[in-house]
């Protein structure tokens, strides 16, 4: 469902040109569980951003679910992100003013779902992620694990086909991190494509397919 061919992404640092992605060819099938590993600056986050349509490649072609999304307008890219992609970030990125329930509700609001249905779906998500008693709490009142659970609930509320996680356990201790990974893997078992970017070898090893990157290139791709 994800097909990248000859993807290049250049960044300019002073008068130097850095190839964050240098001719990436990558196919990821629907329902796969992939880890992307590599040292800092290897381009793994940039790759995730390109897959998630947050970043635009400078050249190459990107097909998502059989349609070419390389040259979509900004508005269309936003729509594709909303419908097909869920992001989970290292630093959670919750809106501090909004309660847990309202944070989870945000994508539904952006999609224009009507309030009654929104409430039902948010309540269901709160139960599914064991956050029922935290619904009215704001992010500062939640623990790290609870925050990431809220973020995952938000990322999956519109049932995206791909879940992209950038160091999802980077800000959590080992035990809580394992819980969060178990949660993400549960979603993978339910059919979601899961792509995890990480430094953590142990974490990366849990995936079914391991991609290693260095200097903007894929140096290993093992199943």
């Amino acid at each position, binding site marked *: 469902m994800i097909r990248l061919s000859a993807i290049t992404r250049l960044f300019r640092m002073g008068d130097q040109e850095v190839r964050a992605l240098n001719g990436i060819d990558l196919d990821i099938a629907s329902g796969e569980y992939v880890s992307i590993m590599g040292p800092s600056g290897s381009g793994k986050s940039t790759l995730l*951003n390109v897959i*998630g349509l*947050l*970043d635009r490649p400078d050249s190459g072609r990107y097909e998502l679910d059989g349609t070419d999304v390389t040259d979509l307008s*900004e*508005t269309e890219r*936003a*729509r*594709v*992100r*909303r*419908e097909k*992609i869920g*992001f989970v*970030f290292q630093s959670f*990125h919750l*809106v501090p*003013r*909004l309660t847990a329930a309202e944070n989870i509700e*945000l*994508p539904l*609001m*952006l*999609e*224009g779902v009507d309030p009654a249905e929104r409430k039902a779906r948010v309540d269901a998500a709160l139960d599914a992620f064991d956050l029922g008693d935290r619904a009215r709490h704001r992010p500062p009142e939640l623990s790290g694990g609870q925050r990431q659970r809220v973020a995952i609930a*938000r990322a999956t509320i519109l049932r995206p086909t791909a879940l992209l996680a950038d160091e999802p356990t980077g800000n959590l201790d080992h035990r809580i991190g394992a819980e969060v990974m178990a949660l993400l893997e549960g979603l993978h078992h339910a059919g979601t494509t899961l792509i995890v970017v990480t430094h953590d070898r142990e974490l990366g090893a849990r995936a079914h397919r391991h991609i290693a990157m260095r200097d903007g290139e894929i140096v290993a791709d093992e199943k």
Partner: protein
Amino acid sequence: MTLRDTLALSFRTVASYRTRSLLIVLAMALGVAAVVVLTALGDGARRYVVGQFSSLGSNLIFVLPGRAETSGGFPGAALGQTPRDLTLEDARFIGRLPQVRRMAPLNVGEAELTYGGRLREVTVLGSTAELLPIRNMRLSQGSFLASGSERSAQIVLGSTLAREFFPDGEAVGRRVRLGDNRFRVSGVLAPQGEAMGFNSDEIAIIPVDYAQEMFNTNSLFRILIEARSRSGIEPAKAAISHLLKQRHEGEEDVTVITQDAILATFDRILRALTLGVAGIAAISLAVAGILVMNVMLVAVAQRTAEIGLLKALGAPAADIRRLFFAEALWLSLAGGAIGYVLGNAGAWAIRLAYPQLPAWPPAWASAAGIATAVATGIIASLLPAARAARLDPVLALSGK
């Protein structure tokens, strides 16, 4: 994102930044309040002047000897002739015009009023019985000049004069000396105070024939005419001009002005003044607008990561722009509403302090004040909103 959600979400944002929002709202409110209070003052002054002028009588037309305009001049001017007198005879002809309800000729002069050893220089009006209804004057004692009394030596005293000369209050029927003539006091005017800089409490009124004799003149100072109705003013004015032109052998050597024209002039001047102060007050609104822009720019900078998140969640640029618009809208709406209330409270306080000044803020000013607040708020949010919508999602997410 629906409009309702956009408004609700931005309202929560505004409400959560309490101190900052309050300060902006206060700045906006003071601007709107300034517009409301200053226009209330300006318009109050206008109504006060118009009210004073209307108290002189209604549907009035004044005839003055001589031309107020120099255009063309009258043919006699080259020969060194003075304009023709405006005579009592002219006045009587005007009084017979069908368009005229009432007419009062007027002579003005100064004379010495004496009674029982008291003596005072007073302003003397020479007129007829009709002056009372035309000028909206009232009597407190006795009667006014009787109709057809031109040759009977009657005098009507202003209230201050009556009090000074007759401290016992018994003025009617007394004989006073004015200049070289003796007059019988027929009535006393009710106190009216000053109107248009003319104090009717310190005048004496005598029949016009006596006045002309006393001041040795044939020319009237003025003729006061009351038209039959408001719409009858212009036809009456035309008829009077035509009549006097005929009587003065084709020369237009009098000036006919209407109360409406004078009133309209005052009205225009004071309206312009009100607009002027409203404009000055509106500048403070523009300053408040710049404040809103500044705060919104800070908000965009502060919430960069949040904007990145919204983009990652699939919010199109238009949604993000609208969210910031809506925030500015809430701030300026709140400022406008609070300013409106503050301004009205201020105008109320002015009315309490100066009861004779009808300082009611005009509706247009309140509406314009609030509209300007909202418009400046929205205009001020254009740039920040566009900046937020343009942010690169990857950079924004990392807070850069």
